[in-house]
């Protein structure tokens, strides 16, 4: 069955679904008196043309990325030359920022390809290489009913989809007043309140009973500032561990905090109960205090610094990550990175702020590209260290490497509304924590259960195949249109792709590809040691 090549769609992660057309696969005749039909030679095929690929070179080595299935291959000289031959002369390697990597294809008869390569290579090698390239979907043979990489029709994931992670808004309030807060300084624009213990328990019950076959589930303490409801957290951790044990599952805990409540006692509690911590900290004082202020306007850096150092010193049972937000005027990525690493963070990740274009703290176009420059420099350092089996701890690179390594083909940008849900202070379920307390994005409650009709509606509408702008983009299966909340904030629409980021994301993923190949070839072990454990 032939499919329109421009419609790509959901492919489950765990199994290769796209099966490239294989060579010479007419069903062999059932006639016993006939020999099985053999396709050994290709010269009776009219010609070849490029499929959708991104080719790149690093040093002397040649690589190809197959976007339809997120597969990365290394090529030898011959393989690379064949693909070069098929590229129309005026369209030499497209820049990464271009959505369409193979805009024009030309059909080259095999009768031309083989002689063009013959002085340097044996005919049998050339034929073998063409077969292999065809087998991985890098090229198509023309004039022969060929399907290329099959794309199944867009379809919903199997339902009911098991829950993996719940993000609990345990404190709909915050003692800080960071200017860029997506939660409107802690209460999402609704009355300040704490989650009740009963609601928290119901949430854990909901998570465990809806987790399908998952052996591990994750509870994330969020807010506002979650440590404002420490009492609930203390009680819930024990409850969840018990309930988990009864259900035969392990419960993991993490927390995002502004660090102002990190007393020694709290730190010891977090360490004892193995709660992973992500600290919201933007860099050295001059950057951090620009936006992360108390409601009075005073910066919080001086107050949190000793507490953060104490945390890093005493809490050894889980990795501690720093999560820095980049905003207008706060773009010195490397300076912030080193500052946070020196404090002792194992991992530092940067996120450009989610904003409407006119927000005071929004990054300008030029600033976005300055950030990219700095990202690239850090990425180069990451690669150098990785080759020597060391981990730099720059989360942004680790994340993209993880997705490339797994070869993810995503129909949705993230697990929101799927395996991840946010729980509001009253127990209502939301697409994710960023949509907490937003009536429009409510999907049921931990008491009533998930509103499956709403979920289905969301999943249908959010599917990558519906984002017409994405269909020809070479990073569509990794980006999948980008964060729903980002789109909602910037464009007012949940399901629109984040067009303001497209070139930026393509550039970043290209850097990721580059890093991937530069690490994989000399030190594939790096992925086993540092990347596989993350879980895509």
């Amino acid at each position, binding site marked *: 069955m032939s499919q329109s090549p421009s419609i790509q769609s959901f492919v*489950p*992660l*765990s*199994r290769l679904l796209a099966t490239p057309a294989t060579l010479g696969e007419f069903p062999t005749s059932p006639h*016993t008196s006939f020999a099985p039909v053999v396709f050994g030679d290709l010269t009776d095929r009219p010609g070849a043309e490029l499929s959708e690929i991104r080719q790149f070179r690093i040093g002397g080595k040649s690589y190809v990325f197959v976007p339809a299935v997120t597969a990365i291959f290394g090529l030898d000289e011959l393989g690379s030359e064949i693909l070069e031959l098929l590229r129309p002369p005026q369209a030499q390697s497209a820049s990464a920022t271009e959505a369409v990597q193979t805009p024009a294809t030309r059909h080259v008869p095999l009768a031309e390809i083989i002689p063009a390569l013959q002085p340097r290579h044996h005919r049998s090698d050339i034929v073998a290489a063409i077969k292999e390239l065809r087998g991985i979907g890098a090229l198509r043979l023309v004039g022969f009913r060929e399907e290329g990489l099959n794309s199944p029709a867009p379809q919903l*994931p*199997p339902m009911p*989809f*098991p829950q993996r992670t719940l993000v609990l808004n345990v404190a709909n309030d915050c003692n800080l007043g960071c200017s860029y807060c997506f939660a409107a300084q802690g209460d999402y624009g609704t009355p300040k309140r704490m989650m009740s213990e009963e609601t928290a328990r119901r949430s854990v019950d909901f998570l465990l009973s809806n987790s*399908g*076959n998952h052996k591990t589930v994750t509870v994330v303490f969020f807010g506002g500032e979650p440590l404002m409801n420490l009492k609930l957290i203390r009680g819930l951790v024990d409850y969840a561990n018990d309930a988990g044990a009864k259900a035969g599952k392990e419960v993991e805990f993490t927390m995002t905090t502004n660090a102002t409540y990190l007393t020694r006692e709290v730190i010891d509690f977090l360490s004892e109960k193995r709660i992973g911590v992500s600290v919201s900290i933007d860099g050295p004082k001059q950057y951090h205090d620009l936006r992360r202020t108390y409601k009075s306007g005073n910066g919080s850096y001086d107050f949190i610094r000793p507490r953060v150092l104490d945390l890093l010193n005493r809490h050894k049972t889980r990795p501690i990550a720093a999560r820095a937000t980049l905003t207008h005027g706060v773009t010195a990525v490397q300076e912030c990175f080193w500052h946070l690493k020196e404090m002792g963070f194992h991992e530092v990740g940067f996120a450009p702020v989610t904003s409407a274009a006119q927000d005071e703290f929004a990054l300008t176009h030029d600033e976005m590209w300055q950030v990219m420059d700095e990202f690239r420099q850090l990425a180069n350092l990451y690669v150098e260290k990785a080759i020597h089996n060391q981990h730099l701890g720059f989360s942004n690179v680790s994340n993209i490497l993880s997705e490339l390594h797994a070869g993810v083909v995503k129909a949705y940008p993230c697990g929101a509304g799927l395996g991840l849900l946010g729980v509001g202070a009253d127990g209502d379920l939301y697409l994710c924590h960023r949509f907490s307390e937003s009536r429009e994005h409510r999907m049921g409650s931990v008491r009533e259960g998930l509103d499956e009709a709403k979920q289905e509606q969301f999943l249908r509408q959010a599917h990558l195949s519906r984002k017409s702008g994405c269909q020809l983009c070479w990073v569509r299966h990794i980006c999948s249109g980008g964060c729903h909340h980002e789109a909602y904030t910037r464009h007012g629409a949940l399901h629109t792709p984040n067009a303001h980021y497209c070139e930026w994301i393509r550039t970043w993923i290209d850097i990721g590809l580059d890093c991937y190949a530069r690490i994989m070839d000399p030190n594939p072990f790096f992925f086993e040691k540092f990347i596989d454990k993350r879980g895509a």
Partner: protein
Amino acid sequence: MVAAPKRPLQRCLRAAAMAASLAALAFAQESELYVLGVHPHGIVVFDGTRNEIVTEIQTRGRAPKELVPSADGKFVYVTSDGRAKLEVVNLETRAVDKVLELAPPGYRLTIFGVVINRNGGRLYVHVKPVRELIDQYVVDPPQVWSVDVATGKARKIAEVPQGVVALALTRDERQLLAWGRDLYYIDLAEGRITDTFRLMNPANPTEGALNTLALFVQYERSGIFSIPYYTKDPITSKDLMGLVNLDVNTGKVDTVELGAPIPLYSAVVSPDRKRAYAVMNQLVAIDLEHQRILQTIDLDRTRYVANISRDGKRLFISGAAPYIHVYDTDTLQLVKTIELPGDPAVTGFRALPPGAMR
């Protein structure tokens, strides 16, 4: 016309003689019953003496496939719904008593091969289990289970190679025979395959591989489970066919080579074990004693299954299109055509034991 008796004694004798002949008539009229499945969800009970349908019983699942009558004639066990369900059909009440749901949670089963022991308390099934995870299917090895009929609880006995389609139980109920690519003998006490009669995988390279598909179980009359085989003589490269005859009572296997191939689905052996009749697009009468084909007639349509009357005189063929055709086994003349309410598809045509549905 009976002459008027001359004396009272003669009158008594006459009456006695009449009574005896009436009784004999009644005995001769006791019907031979058969069952087969029809699309979309029915079991048809067919009277092979009167050549008419007795009743149609609705199954709970669709597309009934295998049918296994119990030895006392009270029940028929039927697989349905893609061979996943095992239904217990009560022939007396003419309704489904219950459905044995054998699949453990998270599993889908396909049952190919069902057999029941003589006292009716234990079923043996060959299952192909698949675990349905959220985003993939994991195929477990095919295996044979023992099922307690009363409780519906199943216990695994042994794993078998891929390709098993039928089961049979020896008379002493010590061995379970599983017919797939080869014929496997499972010792029920030991819980493993203790012997194999090689069909598709001959030990000796000079023997051809015998290709069989034992999907059609119809050996009630003779105790011989007979399936056509196809092979290529490895030395002459000639295509050949024959029959593989498994004596279900003893487990002994014989092969009967017949010559140039005629496509055939299944065979039924006569009660005296001297003849076999095989069907697909032809009906072939085979002399088993002299190992040769006696007669071949063209059929107007494809048939899958056949069964034979207790006296060996009438042949019933069915399968595919919605008819049962009755043939005279001596002349291979068509005696009667009976229309069925639906297509029998690939289903058994089993003889019910005497006493069923009295």
